[in-house]
């Protein structure tokens, strides 16, 4: 280590507090040029706060202190807002966690990328424009000339993230901080963005990568820091941390990554569900997973045949679902994967008969389903449960958890299918909460005040209240971080075993689907491009698109 260049970032004992409470408790961190350091940790552990504090913008009402804070050798520990403003963008670029909202929707991409050039350099406008084009080309934006005139709304998530990266590296800062640069992106896009960051790092920029996803960082990082509750609890080279984690917490993080964890193996280290209290459980007695043998297949529980759905758009109709046929048997899980906008949610809504198909039919338990009148459908509704991507939105904001669940229980009773047909609902609610691993006291809370994982559990409890035979889950875990995601997946798995539920499981995350599904269908632009047994589809993809998806799926590099 001769001729050591100045570290891109050197910070000691960084503390950040809001109001009276500290959120980040003394972090030490050094990043050398060309090095990629990753911070991983569960949601709320302080990763984003740390990232922002490194640029002197931890937020309103915040207190930041550090023994020293040097970026590219310049001490900014005591910098004023004015001094910071001069250095931001020049010495360090920041890619914010919320990629989709980080570009001003009213301004063109070109202007957004031009901003740092305009603020920090005195360049003629033509030169600026030329540099913007070059930057866009550098980040692999197809057709930069037309891209500069577009606004964020006209770009896909991946392209937006590229534009943001272009803005962050416009002045070629020695340090780039990327906060969750790939969450909310499709796997294929995610892979491309990670490759781009890799390129930047190779050019000699120090990269601080923040993620809660060990699989993602395993591909990228030279070193990993594991953060929990505002502290670094473990750090080391990527290999060390992933292969020989010292802390239980790190181990649970690694275990929670579902990719390639076979079906039926628990993901969460600690079962969230307390010992089952047997009693008035509204369960359907059912054996374990039914035979998977095609020979003894009966009528499918859910059968979609040749579904087509179009939407009116200005100047014509847009085909969201195009000749989709699927079938799902009792006790099985059918995974539906595909990139954003491929029509997965629309399929789910068709299956729930929330919209009517333009052509094709949905049959439930052998009976006509989508062609019925809503009134005729109502008595059967309780047999199908649904879990939504955004559980909060699916709860009446005025109702507390107890009322939400009691309402669902009462609905099932009215339909005459609940096992417990009379009596107060409170005990049943308590049992439901218990089933999904929530304390009975949660019944008094409003959904607003619950954490994401808790909300998703309440959603599951509600879906189960009607003793459904089919559960349709639309991206049930995409909003959750890995550890919580693992618990939810385990829970769904348990319930399926217990009750012989059929699951339609929708996700864009191949790892999750691989872990959960018996059969998989891959959607693209409204069509099913490939379907079949999960193991087969993921190991021997028959369609190039599937192959691409599988290849792009992050997995722990071990």
């Amino acid at each position, binding site marked *: 280590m001769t001729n050591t260049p100045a570290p891109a970032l050197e910070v000691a004992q960084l503390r950040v507090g809001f109001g009276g409470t500290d959120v980040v408790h003394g972090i030490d961190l050094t990043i050398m040029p060309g090095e990629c350091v990753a911070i991983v940790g569960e949601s709320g552990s302080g990763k984003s706060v740390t990232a922002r504090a490194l640029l002197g913008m931890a937020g309103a009402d915040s207190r930041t202190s550090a023994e020293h804070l040097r970026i590219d050798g310049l001490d900014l520990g005591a910098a004023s807002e004015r001094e910071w403003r001069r250095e931001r963008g020049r010495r360090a670029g920041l890619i914010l966690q919320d990629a989709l909202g980080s570009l001003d929707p009213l301004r063109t991409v070109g202007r957004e990328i031009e901003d740092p050039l305009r603020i920090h350099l005195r360049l003629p406008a033509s030169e600026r424009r030329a540099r913007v084009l070059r930057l866009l080309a550098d980040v692999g934006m197809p057709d930069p000339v037309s891209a500069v005139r577009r606004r964020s709304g006209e770009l896909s998530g991946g392209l937006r993230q590229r534009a943001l990266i272009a803005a962050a590296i416009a002045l070629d800062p020695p340090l780039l901080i990327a906060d969750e640069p790939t969450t909310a992106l499709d796997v294929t896009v995610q892979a491309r963005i990670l490759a781009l960051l890799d390129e930047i790092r190779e050019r000699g920029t120090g990269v601080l990568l923040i993620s809660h996803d060990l699989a993602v960082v395993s591909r990228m990082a030279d070193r990993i820091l594991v953060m929990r509750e505002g502290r670094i609890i473990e750090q080391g080279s990527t290999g060390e941390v992933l292969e020989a984690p010292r802390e239980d917490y790190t181990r649970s993080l690694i275990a929670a990554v579902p990719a390639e964890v076979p079906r039926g193996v628990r993901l969460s280290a600690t079962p969230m569900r307390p010992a089952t209290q047997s009693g008035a459980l509204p369960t359907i007695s059912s054996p374990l997973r039914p035979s998977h043998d095609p020979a003894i297949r009966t009528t499918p529980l859910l059968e979609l045949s040749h579904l087509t759905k179009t939407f009116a758009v200005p100047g014509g109709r847009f085909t969201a679902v195009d000749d989709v046929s699927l079938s799902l048997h009792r006790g099985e899980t059918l995974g539906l994967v595909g990139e954003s906008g491929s029509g997965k949610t629309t399929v789910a809504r068709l299956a729930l008969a929330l919209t009517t198909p333009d052509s094709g039919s949905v049959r439930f338990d052998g009976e006509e389903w989508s062609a019925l009148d809503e009134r005729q459908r109502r*008595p059967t509704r309780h047999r199908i449960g649904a879990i939504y991507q955004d559980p909060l939105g*699916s709860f*009446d904001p005025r109702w507390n958890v107890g009322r939400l669940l009691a309402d669902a229980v009462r609905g099932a009773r009215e339909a005459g299918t609940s096992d417990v047909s009379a009596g107060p609902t409170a005990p049943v609610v308590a049992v439901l909460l218990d089933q999904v691993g929530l304390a009975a006291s949660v019944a008094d809370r409003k959904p607003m005040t619950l954490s994401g994982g808790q909300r998703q559990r309440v959603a599951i409890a*509600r879906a189960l209240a009607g003793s459904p035979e089919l559960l349709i889950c639309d991206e049930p875990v995409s909003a959750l971080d890995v550890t919580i995601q693992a618990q939810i997946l385990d829970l769904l798995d348990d319930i399926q075993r217990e009750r012989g539920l059929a699951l339609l499981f929708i996700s864009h995350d191949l790892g999750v689907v691989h872990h959960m599904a018996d059969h998989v269908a891959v959607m693209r632009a409204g069509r099913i491009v490939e379907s079949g047994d999960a193991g087969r589809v993921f190991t021997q993809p028959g369609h190039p698109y599937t192959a691409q998806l599988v290849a792009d799926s992050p997995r722990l590099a071990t």
Partner: protein
Amino acid sequence: MSDLELQQATAVSAAAHAPARRRGRMPRTGTLVAGAFVLFLLAATVAPELVATQDPNAISPVDAFQSPSPAHWFGTDESGRDIYSRVVAGTATSLLIGISATAIGLALGLVLGVLASFGGRIVDFGVNRLVEVLFAFPGLLLALLVIVVYGPGPVTATVAVGLSTAPGYARIIRGQLVAIRSSQYVEAARVLGRSPARILSRHVLPNALIPIFVLATLGIGQAIVWAAALSYLGLGAQPPAAEWGAMLAAGRTYLATAWWMTVFPGLMIVGTTIATTVLGRALTRRGRGER
């Protein structure tokens, strides 16, 4: 009567952004002061004789145009009547105008809004056009027509203001209902097999209530202001009724010589608007589970 339209729009924005409002934006002391003021208004409405110091209609021409003093806290008017007592006496009328006009507007708006959002495409289209037409029809003319046809007075002023606010409310309520109806929790209720009537009564209306309540709190003050404008044109409350708007209009004549004749009734109007707005927002925050 587009003041009301505006006020409604404010309410929408207030309602829409209520959750975005950060805690502590409106200090809690503000809520308390507003609450105290509303309590005073209620007292003045229910038992004006306890709050007032004198007979609000007792004239005494020799005592006309006296500036505020311990005997007459808010001074006296052109007939020597005690302005404080008149302000107190006018509370009931003014609030009644404000509240009933808002109630009329809201009720009509609710009917139109519910029709539009639940009556199917054709009804929706029809109601929307109707609302658009009513919007294009100058609000003041609507009010003038009502007054000219049915004669002036607090009742007609109330009806006039109420009628001219209805299209604004209808538009907002429809938007609100449509948003709720297409919300995921209503969809979830459908998936649970709930009947439309039950969805309407358990989910849609209760959830629309809070923003409508905010609308109402804003509407009260604005309705009083509009009734005051009618009073200025001589078409509002009839003498000797002590109505704030009428007092304001009457006192305007003497603005140069007797400022107290307008300032105090004016303060009541503004105070009522602020107090109801502040309270409305506080209640909204509470309704949404914020502090």
